Structures are given as structure tokens and as C-alpha cells.
């Protein structure tokens, strides 16, 4: 308990100081609400629009989790496939890298045409942004497999599947967890950008739609509230991935053992 408090105190203290300064700056300079709303105004907007923001957060959370799950699956499978064959790696890795460089904002409208409006496009958008870190970290993790252990598996004539399942994948797990942590935040960004162009509006509008609608209404307080909630979704996903990573690594990997 005491240790948790020690961990939580510094960032909380910084957050409180930043919020107080922010509130003071807005009051002292009498900034208009559309330009920079005070933290208290943002909190008020959060409370007054809690139903809309709650529904939006749930929608964005679903899209982010779904997109991240897809990205993790595709990233590990594709990374493993590339890691198991030099030919595949040479042929496909540069293409995967190129895919990562494509600006999502440019292709998001095309996703709507290909996949239609709603969750499918948003999932695809989140997945596209999040897949590369998982793929690259899986590949790096597999490349880093201990050469001595590889040799032993060779001596015992282990098959390709056994080698992957019992040697390469476990060696890659720490690296995959790191990649998934990066992907967790990216999935939320991808989901929100996807929602800008493909999300359904109405009572269940996701946060991306709440942000765009609030921008048009000059309701910067609501924009801040929705952005803060998007960040919370990212934190939540990051926390879940980190927790799962710790569970996987805690008994044997140095990073988790040290934390323990």
C-alpha cells in the first residue's frame, strides 16, 4: 500500500500543480472558453455531458481493444512467419515498413468505401496503426533467440513448429510485450482517427465524433473532455497490456523479476 502510494504520488502531485497553474492562467488572462477552457470548465462539461461521453468512451474502448487485439494477433503471426524464413523476411519486411509509413488520415476515407461505416472501418484503422510495432518486436525477439539453444534444438531434430512454440516464441515474449505496449496507445489514436471519418453519430457516437461535433460548436471544453477520455482509454489499454506482460514474465524474465 505504502509502495503504491510512493509510486502514485509524484505524477499525481505534478498533475495537481499543472491543473492549478492552468486554472490560474485562464482566470488571470481571462481567456475565452473557446480558446482554452479552465480545468474546472472541462470537469463541468464532463459532468453535464456524462451520458454522451460515457457512451462515446465505451464505443472508442471497444474499437481500440478490438483493433489492438487484431493487431497483436496479426503482428505476432506475421512477425513469426517473417522470422522463420529469410526469404519471406527479405520480401515482405520492407513492404510492411512501407505500410507503416502510409499516413492513416489519407487512407481512412478509403477504408469507409471498402469496409463501410461503423466499427469495421474503425477496427481496421486502429489495427493498421498498431500492427507494425508488434510485428517488428516479434521479429526482433525471434532474431534474438539464444544461438546455443537453437543448436540444442537442432541436435534433437526438433520440428519447425516445436522450435517456434518452445524456443523462439518464449524468447520473443519480452520483446512482444514491449511492442504491444507501444501498440496499445497507437490503437486508440487509430480508432479515434478512424471515427473521424467512419463513426456513427447519434446517442452512441464514439469519442472521435464527439470531438469533431464539439469543434464545430466551438465547445472546446467538450473537445478537451473527449480528448482526456481518449487518453484514459489509452492508459487503460496500456495498463492491461503491462499487467498481462508482467503475468507472463514474472517467473522467469529479468525485467519482471527485478520489479518483483
Amino acid at each position, binding site marked *: 500500500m505504502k509502495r503504491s502510494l510512493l509510486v502514485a504520488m509524484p505524477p499525481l502531485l505534478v498533475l495537481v500543480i499543472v491543473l492549478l497553474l492552468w486554472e490560474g492562467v485562464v482566470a488571470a488572462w481571462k481567456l475565452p472558453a473557446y*480558446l482554452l477552457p479552465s480545468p474546472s470548465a472541462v470537469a463541468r462539461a464532463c459532468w453535464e455531458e456524462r451520458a454522451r461521453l460515457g457512451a462515446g468512451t465505451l464505443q472508442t474502448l471497444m474499437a481500440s481493444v478490438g483493433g489492438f487485439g487484431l493487431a497483436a494477433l496479426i503482428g505476432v503471426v506475421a512477425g513469426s512467419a517473417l522470422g522463420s524464413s529469410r526469404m519471406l523476411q527479405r520480401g515482405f519486411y520492407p513492404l510492411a515498413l512501407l505500410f507503416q509509413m502510409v499516413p492513416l488520415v489519407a487512407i481512412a476515407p478509403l477504408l469507409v468505401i471498402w469496409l463501410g461505416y461503423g466499427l469495421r472501418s474503425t477496427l481496421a484503422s486502429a489495427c493498421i496503426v498498431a500492427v507494425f510495432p508488434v510485428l517488428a518486436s516479434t521479429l526482433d525477439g525471434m532474431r534474438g533467440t539464444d544461438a546455443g539453444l537453437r543448436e540444442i534444438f537442432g541436435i534433437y531434430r526438433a520440428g519447425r513448429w516445436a522450435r517456434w512454440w518452445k524456443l523462439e516464441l518464449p524468447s520473443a515474449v519480452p520483446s512482444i510485450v514491449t511492442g504491444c505496449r507501444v501498440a496499445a496507445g497507437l490503437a486508440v489514436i487509430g480508432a479515434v482517427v478512424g471515427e473521424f471519418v467512419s463513426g456513427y453519430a447519434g446517442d452512441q457516437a464514439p469519442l472521435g465524433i464527439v470531438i469533431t*461535433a464539439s*469543434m464545430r460548436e466551438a465547445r472546446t471544453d467538450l473537445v478537451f473532455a473527449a480528448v482526456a477520455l481518449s487518453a484514459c482509454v489509452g492508459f487503460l489499454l496500456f495498463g492491461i497490456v503491462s499487467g498481462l506482460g508482467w503475468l507472463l514474465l514474472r517467473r522467469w524474465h529479468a525485467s519482471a523479476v527485478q520489479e518483483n
Partner: protein
Amino acid sequence: MRMRSIIVGLLGLASIAGCGDAKPAAPAPGAPTRIRLQLNWVPEPEFGGIYAAQFDGLYRDAGLEVEIIKDPGGAAVPQMIDQGVCDAGTISGDQILQLREQGGDLVAIYNVFDHTPIGLMAHAKDAPPTMEAVWKGEGNLSIETGIPVWKFVAAKYGLTSRKQVPFGGVTANFLADPTLVQQCFITSEPVLMDLQKVPVKVYNVSEAGYDPYTEVVAVKRGSMPADVQRKFCAAMQEGWKRYMADPAKYNPRIAALNPAMSAEAMNLAAERMKPLLLTPWTQANGLGSMDPARWQAMIDLLHAVNVIKTKPAPASLMDGMPLQAAPRTQ
């Protein structure tokens, strides 16, 4: 005003922070007064008169150096004007009211459309007969969520039974989905569809009882000296007269600034603009002029549907005196 790139809009919000001086720098003696005019869309006939005045040197002759800045996509124009990022901008009248609720203080100095060009566009095949029937139909509805016009329509007809999807200002989704109904400027998207031989039916939003001033040139209150404002408005008015008299003369040059719309499409659009600009009111009072009664109607309607909480006096929203006294338009 349309959503093409929301991210740019968000960046626009970020970019306006820290720019607090709304007054343009005083020019050196004899030098023209510089005005940065921010448009809220790409160059199209809806800005025809503004460009015609530029092409014909009307601003220059009035001692003004007007820089027309096209919208890169999703620019937060009302906020930019209020913060002095630009000296003037084209926005909708209801945005003046909305920004006022959030601490902004803009006034309209020139009005382009006397009747709103905003509407809904549906595929002509099996198109419902009325806007209400469209609103209560089945399929996707692509509109800019959050703008007052649709809040008014929702208050009038009830929440739409269609699935609301974002409006990207493009027609690709409309072409791909025969059930899609999308927001349009009567002078823009339907024209492009006509030229592509895609039959469409258009419903003007005034059918629902809301006919706002959709495109006004606004400035921050007190930021533009009266004589500069008068010259600027007079030049725009003359530009619009010339443009409406012979749009084909100017459209190739406007089309060169916007390759997405051909001069042919712009000529057709200009033709469709005529009944929206050349009305009995503008014939009697001059292009660009505004009717306080129309502002009052807009205030009352938006107040009734909770878009605004206070009801300002119409005179506080418009500073069109130079135009009210302008000579009659031919």
C-alpha cells in the same frame, strides 16, 4: 465549415492559441491596408465575387491589399478571426452566435447568400418527396454533426431514423452507397453529380423552416477601421455584381486555384446561385446587405432549440451599415 480534414481543424485550434492581437498592423503612409481574408472552403463559385474583386483589381483600387487564404481543410475560421490570426473570414451566421456563447465577439459585415444553399442530396431513384420523409427514411445520413442547421432539423422532425455518419465533403461515398443521403451546398455537390450524369434530388433546408445567413464575411468587433470596412465591402459588392453578370469570365481563374472543380462545373454552379443571391431583398437593398429581421428569426429559432442560451440584439451581430446605404443592385 465542411469536414475534409478534422485533424487540420484540431491543429488549427492549436495554431490560434497565442495569437491575441486582432488589430492588423497600421500600414505605412501611402501603403495599402493589408487584409487577410480566410475562406472556410476551397475556391468555388460561392466565393466568386470575392475573387472577381481580386482579379479586377477592385481591392487594390480601394487602397487595400487583400490576401485570400483558402481553407486547407477544417480550419476553425471563427476562432481564427476572433484571435486575429486573420483579419476577416467567411463563416456562417450561426457560428457568430455559437462563438459568442463561448466568449468570442464577431460581427458580420457582408452577406453572400440571401437564402441558404445548404441542403440534403439523395439519389433520385426512389427519392422521398420531402425533406421530412428523407430525414425519417432508412439508410445512411452523412452530415456535419454539431452544426446548428441539423440541430434545428432534428428539433423540427425528431431524431433521424437514419444512421448518421461523418461528412467528408466528398462524393465518393455517395456514389458507392445508393441509400446514402448527404449534406450538400446546392451549388457544389449536386452540380458535380449532374456533370457525372448521376441523377440526384436536392432538398433545401429552408423547407424545414430554417433559412440562415450561411456565408457571411465576419470580423472581430472593432478590429477593422470604419473606412477600411466600407471600402472592403464596397469592393466585394462590386465584385459580386460583376461575377453574377458574367461568371464564365472569372471561373477559369478560380478553377485554376481548385483543380477539383472544372470551370464548366463552376459555370453551372454560378447559374444555380442566382436565385439565392439575386432576391427581392438584395435587389432593393444591395448585394451583401442583411436584414435585422432575418437575424432575429435565426436567433429565435436557435434559442428555441437550445443551440444558444442568450438572445443578443440583431444589431450587435451585424455591422452592415455601409451596405444598407449602398446603391441599388442592377
